[in-house]
């Protein structure tokens, strides 16, 4: 992994763009370029801005530059028997940390170990005026000032260019075990709700095509204990099952139909939408390949207290993200303006009017 601090040149680049009112398309490895709307803007490439700035395993904190490759960070953590608790979705081996934070997409462990935003402790951010700012810090608890570093998670670069991120890291579990059971979608959702209300060492809960998959993780003794309690049915055939969910390399994700992500309260019963489903997060994240209209999908998601993202296949005819109520959109616009008064940072990437 290379080590290069390009903060000043990135900052100067943004400042120049602010003066000239030139919109910027912030990118690293472009592995998440499909997510949200394409922006017609000049490229700002952060991928050369690399390196781990600070990592002390016993402090459980890692700080790295936004262009650092996720695989490099995860290897370093693995060497120290630690990991990123949120298991970021990783779409290529070049995927960067900055992209993982800006997209805010967490992996299978999310309901049990927290989301991307939960792990963020601090961030270096260049705002839309070309000012290099620093919020949060490298300690677990910090309530000085507004929490602007967590706000960056999932903001898709529309509020600032991330230069570096400090994150909480967690120990790798001593032992892992995946069990598989035959179940209809409804049966799986019911079992997940029951299990997640009990003190079990869980780290993944997925359903697809007639089977549920449950990952147990923790000390050897606790995994063994849980395994006995839940009935032994070890998944042997697909050793990379959870990785295939993290990287969207599972056959479900490789189809060409539009891919929807529905985020709903986990115990919600199966939704009345035709298509092919893959359920994650114990029911809280539901992937759907469907030709149903956006209105119908979003209407059903909203009815149960959730929202729907057109994850792949967004175009000019359809917003990628669930539309916001007018007062909330207006607040988003004012907040965007407070960071980026000239509207030059990834304009339209999240919402067309943002």
């Amino acid at each position, binding site marked *: 992994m290379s080590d290069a601090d390009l903060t000043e040149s990135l900052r100067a680049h943004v400042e120049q763009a602010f003066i000239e009112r030139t919109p910027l398309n912030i990118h690293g490895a472009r592995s998440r370029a499909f997510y949200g709307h394409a922006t017609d803007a000049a490229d700002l490439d952060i991928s050369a801005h690399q390196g781990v700035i600070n990592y002390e395993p016993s402090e459980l904190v890692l700080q790295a530059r936004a262009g650092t490759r996720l695989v490099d960070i995860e290897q370093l953590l693995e060497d120290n028997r630690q990991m990123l608790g949120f298991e970021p979705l990783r779409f290529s081996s070049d995927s960067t940390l900055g992209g993982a934070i800006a997209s805010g997409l967490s992996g299978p462990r999310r309901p049990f170990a927290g989301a991307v935003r939960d792990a963020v402790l601090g961030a270096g951010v260049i705002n839309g005026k070309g000012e290099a700012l620093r919020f949060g810090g490298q300690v677990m608890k910090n309530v000085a000032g507004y*929490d602007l570093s967590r706000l960056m998670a999932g903001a898709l670069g529309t509020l600032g260019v991330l230069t570096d991120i400090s994150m909480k890291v967690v120990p790798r579990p001593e032992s892992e075990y995946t069990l598989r059971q035959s179940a209809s979608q409804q049966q799986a959702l019911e079992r997940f709700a029951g299990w997640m*209300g009990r*003190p079990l060492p869980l780290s993944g809960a997925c359903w697809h095509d007639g089977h549920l998959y449950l990952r147990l993780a923790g000390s050897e003794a606790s995994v063994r204990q849980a395994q006995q309690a839940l009935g032994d049915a070890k998944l042997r055939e697909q050793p990379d099952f959870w990785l295939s969910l993290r990287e969207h390399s599972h056959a479900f994700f490789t189809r060409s139909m539009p891919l929807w992500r529905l985020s709903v309260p986990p115990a919600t019963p199966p939704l009345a939408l035709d298509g092919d489903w893959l359920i994650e997060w114990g029911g809280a994240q539901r992937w759907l390949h469907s030709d149903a209209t956006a209105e119908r999908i979003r209407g059903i998601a909203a009815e149960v207290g959730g929202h729907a993202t057109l994850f792949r296949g967004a175009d000019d005819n359809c917003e990628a993200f669930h539309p916001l109520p007018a007062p909330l959109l207006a607040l988003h616009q004012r907040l965007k303006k407070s960071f980026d008064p000239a509207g030059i940072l990834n304009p339209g990437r999240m919402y067309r009017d943002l």
Partner: protein
Amino acid sequence: MKYAAQMSDLDTFLAGLPDLPDHCVVRESEERRAYECDGLSAYRRMPWLVLLPETVEQVQAIVRHCQSSGIPVVARGAGTGLSGGALPLENGVLLSLAKFNRILDIDVANRLARVQPGVRNLAISEAVDQHGLYYAPDPSSQIACSIGGNVAENAGGVHCLKYGLTVHNISEIQLVTIDGELLTLGGRALDAAGYDLLALLTGSEGLLGIIVEVTVKLLPKPERAQVILAAFDDVTKAGAAVGSIIAAGIIPAGLEMMDKLSIQAAEDFVHAGYPLDAAAILLCELDGTSEEVSEHVFKVRELLKSSGATEVRTAKSDAERVRFWKGRKAAFPAVGRISPDYYCMDGTIPRKALPQVLQTIEDLSKQYGLPVANVFHAGDGNLHPLILYDANKPGELERTEEFGGRILELCISVGGTITGEHGVGMEKINQMCTQFNEAELQQFHAVKAAFDPGGLLNPGKAIPTLARCAEFGSMHVHGGQLPFPELERF
């Protein structure tokens, strides 16, 4: 004359709120006095008017009326905050959410509880106990503090190393904006569309909106919890022991340290059975499945011994476990018994800086002639030095505040922060000028303006004006040397 003028202003203001019943209005000075301070009683101010609405519609109407009359609003929960965040204004409304005290809904299947902001922290866990669930964040004031205040301050507690702060344990809030608009932030799913405004609002100290409903996440109660007490003859060894537990891949549910003075004060007060000859003790709580706890207790005992603990005790019964914790949870009042007054600080530091920070605090303690008892959330680096002083001795409060300020600046200089869980409020507003530079503070003000352009929500707290920082900076220069000349100043 001035009083009369104010009264008539008050009448005019109240006339604009025809639908607010009389019993929701506190205007007599003896009744208003109950609201003149929060948990930081060194700071007091009489509120102009106290309002205790009972419905969200009333909150909206009050805020709208304040907006159109240009009257500032300070929201208050249970008033247990330790940074003066709910300190009222002489020209403003103190908006108490105390009457919003109902648990609205418990959703066992989704492990969520929807509650009003005035519900006490502990009352949530009590209400869901029958379902085998609980609400994890447990600030030491949890029997009294309310959930709305917890969200406004991003409250922590002794279990946050493993289970996180308030921000990690809430799902949705209902917010009344300064325009009187009711917004839903977050949701009942694990995320919501748009920016993470739930994270932004958590810990925003009442400057961005009034929280009128909170949906919290509930966790299954661990199968078993066990506490180990270890004594050390040297604080540095205790600090190193903490690092070795975490390096071994164990995340304790709680990991607390107390120094000699705190141990003695706590022991005298609650007789927890602490070793009085120790320089420091560690309390380590392990929870999880029964098997896991047994395994971890064994490992942690070994690690503590090899880190040089002079004594390692495992609670033999639930009663003993409760007693071990009782000393820690009573540490603040225990210190209150040995000193007329104490001042509680709240800096967070990287754990490795602990020996250096404790040594410097000891040096400063001698320099200022004020004793310090240290209580430390050792697992997450959150330090609570308690400065012992006597407010009746002329000049001692001022000296204490200056000493406290030096401790906060020390925390910043080792890479930490001025507040881990108590908030900036009124108390640490000057140290914000040290932690953040001008552009960063301006960004904070810009965010504030996106919510509250007129600056009517809890003005003067949390984020200092640039003018205040300029004044604070020059004050320190006049006092002699700048404490940390390498830090950026303006």
